[in-house]
């Protein structure tokens, strides 16, 4: 079932790319740039969609539907369950992002821009690591709250995470108490703008190695903290 959803999404992205090519024909001369913009942003959106909905379903649906009862009577630890679910979904996302990326590259080759077809991949890698954070957030929320609430909260983190730099700017402008509030949010929530490179990528730029490495390190540290927290919370949970 899950696979079917993913196939549909991949198909959808391919359609988007087809649209981008058509659109590219209209925006004469800039088709490659349009393809990168639409393609990579769509990839992020669909990836986020999968991370949020599948990520939430993986843990809290199992609790809600009581499928965990039989699972934990098997020799499976609570922590192991969380890590397994998380890594499984990350792998699925990696496959999906790669397929979508390949689609975008093929579209670029089709319109004759082989250069861009290669230089977009570091940006795709950034998108993937952003998605691993989102998946970790979804896993953490669903380790203690209902599927619907987890999905909503993860979506907020996704949106706010992208405006997180503006949050800090907002903090600088605000009164004392409001400043602490905005700064607290800034530090607690992942700053997803570290992973945004789509517009530059459409101009054929590649993220500098320091940015790429920094962002990946940031993602790995954030993932580890979130998943560790999810494991601790989940290990103490009663399944009523």
């Amino acid at each position, binding site marked *: *079932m899950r696979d079917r959803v993913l196939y549909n999404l991949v198909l959808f992205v391919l359609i988007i790319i087809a649209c981008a090519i058509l659109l590219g024909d209209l925006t004469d001369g800039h088709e490659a740039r349009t393809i990168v913009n639409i393609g990579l942003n769509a990839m992020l959106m669909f990836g986020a969609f999968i991370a949020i909905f599948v990520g939430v379903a993986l843990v809290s649906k199992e609790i809600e*539907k*009581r499928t965990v*009862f*039989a*699972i934990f*009577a098997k*020799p499976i630890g609570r922590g192991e369950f969380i890590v397994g679910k998380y890594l499984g979904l990350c792998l699925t996302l990696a496959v999906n992002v790669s397929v979508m990326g390949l689609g975008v590259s093929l579209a670029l080759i089709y319109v004759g821009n082989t250069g861009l077809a290669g230089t977009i991949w570091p940006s795709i890698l950034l998108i993937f690591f952003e998605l691993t954070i989102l998946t970790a957030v979804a896993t953490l929320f669903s380790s203690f709250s209902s599927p619907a609430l987890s999905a909503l909260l993860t979506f907020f983190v996704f949106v706010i995470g992208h405006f997180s730099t503006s949050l800090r700017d907002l903090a600088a402008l605000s009164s004392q108490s409001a400043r602490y509030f905005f700064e607290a949010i800034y530090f607690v929530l992942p700053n997803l703008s570290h992973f945004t490179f789509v517009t530059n990528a459409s101009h054929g730029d590649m993220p500098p190695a320091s940015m790429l490495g920094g962002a990946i390190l940031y993602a790995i540290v954030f993932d580890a903290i979130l998943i560790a927290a999810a494991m601790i919370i989940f290990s103490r949970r*009663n399944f009523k």
Partner: protein
Amino acid sequence: MNYIVEIENLTKDYEVGFWKKKKVRALDDLTLAVKPGQIFGFLGGNGAGKTTTIKILMTLLFPTSGTARILGSDISDVSMHRRIGYCPENPYFYDYLTATELMKYFGELLGLNSADRSRRASELLTKVGLDEKDWNKQLRKYSKGMLQRVGLAQALINEPEIVFFDEPMSGLDPIGRREIRELIIELRQKGTTVFMSTHILSDVEALCDEVAILRGGKLTATGRLDELLTRQGERQVYEVSLKNVSADQLPNGYSVRSIASGVIVEIDDESQIDNLLIEARKSGGHLISVQPVRQSLEELFVEPPTA
């Protein structure tokens, strides 16, 4: 003697209410030990705390206080789960898997090789009486009784040394119940310990070696079923069903209930049955059945034995 399940001073409070948390004591200082190789009946009415106890043993719930061991290991040791099986109350599994896929998946979690998984899956699904044409149907299309059968089958995939069945007969049709009874007896013959919760007294009588009786989260009695019954002062009652005869055609002194096809007479002395039949035949009555009813078991259920 080594015990296979040891429960010590187990207490569980549920917190209820969203704002003002109120505590509900579901299990109160339960201490219990189960010997290996037997069918152990865990009895009690609705809300007595049976499911709560079993879920604590399976580490689905954490006790408020107390400890428990299974096969000599503390319940927190998940590696011991390789040697046990569990069928939850009203089991529910993945909607989009088929029964065969589920069995194989659980077999994999338990470290069985692929050949064993397939063999055990079809063996067990046959044994729990699941129709072979349903094996490859998605579980979301299953009825309650069919899910119950899958639940029992999956608990046995690893040939466990002990199984925990929470109301194994729930949702089963009469044939299903007979099949599961036979399955439980067969497990015991192979040396598997069966720990089952139930409130079906006829199953208890037919199956259990020892029982524990819970009421309001407290243990009220435990021991061999026959001993408990003797202690209770066993009173065997027979229900004799007769047709083509009405209550007023029988001599006074019998306790008679009228039913659609005739009457049911309650008799507490076996030797009286012959007399009753002679009387009934005089007015053209026929015997339908004689059924022994152990009233004392029901009493044990409701009232703790004094002494």
